[in-house]
């Protein structure tokens, strides 16, 4: 099963990369209030069981894919 993990800097965490992108978008004339930049991790799992995949992905996020102090995550499970 394929899954995508989206990792975001938590609200209130300084995100200079997001600010730089935001400035650039404004410079191009886009009316942007805020931009935050995170990270995307595509994972191909052996299991086809959605519940099992979700539990495993959550463990991956807690142990390695995110730093819970500064980042939040959402998991998107692909079609089986």
């Amino acid at each position: 099963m394929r899954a995508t993990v989206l990792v975001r800097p938590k609200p209130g965490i300084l995100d200079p990369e997001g600010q730089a992108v935001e400035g650039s978008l404004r410079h191009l004339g886009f009316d942007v209030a805020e931009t935050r930049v995170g990270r995307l991790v595509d994972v191909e799992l052996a299991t086809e069981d959605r519940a099992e995949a979700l539990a495993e992905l959550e463990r991956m996020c807690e142990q390695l894919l995110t730093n819970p102090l500064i980042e939040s995550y959402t998991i998107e499970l692909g079609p089986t």
Partner: protein
Amino acid sequence: MSIPAPVIPVLVFPGSNDDRDAQRALELLGAESPRVWHTDERLPAATAAVVLPGGFSYGDYLRCGAIARFSPVMQAVSAFAADGGLVLGICNGFQILTEAGLLPGALRPNDSLSFVCRDVAVRVETSESAFTSRCDHGRELTIPVKHGDGCWFADDALLEELDANGQIALRYADGANPNGSVGDVAGVLNRDGNVFGLMPHPEHAVDALLGSTDGALILGSLVDAARLSAAVPV
């Protein structure tokens, strides 16, 4: 009676690049500092302190220090620290220690998004630690930084707690913060005071030929403490 040199190994991860500088600086200050490869599961016999050097372990992939913390040698370092062993993390070593949960806070990209590489002034906030005992309280030291991800973060509650416990051992001097760290924090201790991490590189400031020798005050403090802990087996 001659006092044997305290054994202070320097860890080497794939991508570490300040390990030899750290080794040389520690040996200059009277330690015996073997370099220890990250796959070793044990620290050398008679280890009195451990140094995690600067560099770019695992290419800084994912987050700086995030992958190195799972190295076999880090399990030994965690156990050593839990027993009260002295552990110093410099730059990438600091990042690894925060990722490993051995030090509070996290290190994020510099607010400027630029790599900074220059001397900075830092203020010693406590001389009551194994890593700053050779410094006077409030003294300013000149030590170089060279990092892209040195913006230390803690939320207000955590920062307040660390401040109250005297865990903020080193701050950038007024107006000298090179990376946007909250509270101008340059170096932080764990609660028990046996683990310390800092972004500046004391190992690059031990020889007058290269400028400041203030880094020797930090590393020399560690060598002193290591010598004491080696003399009194736990």
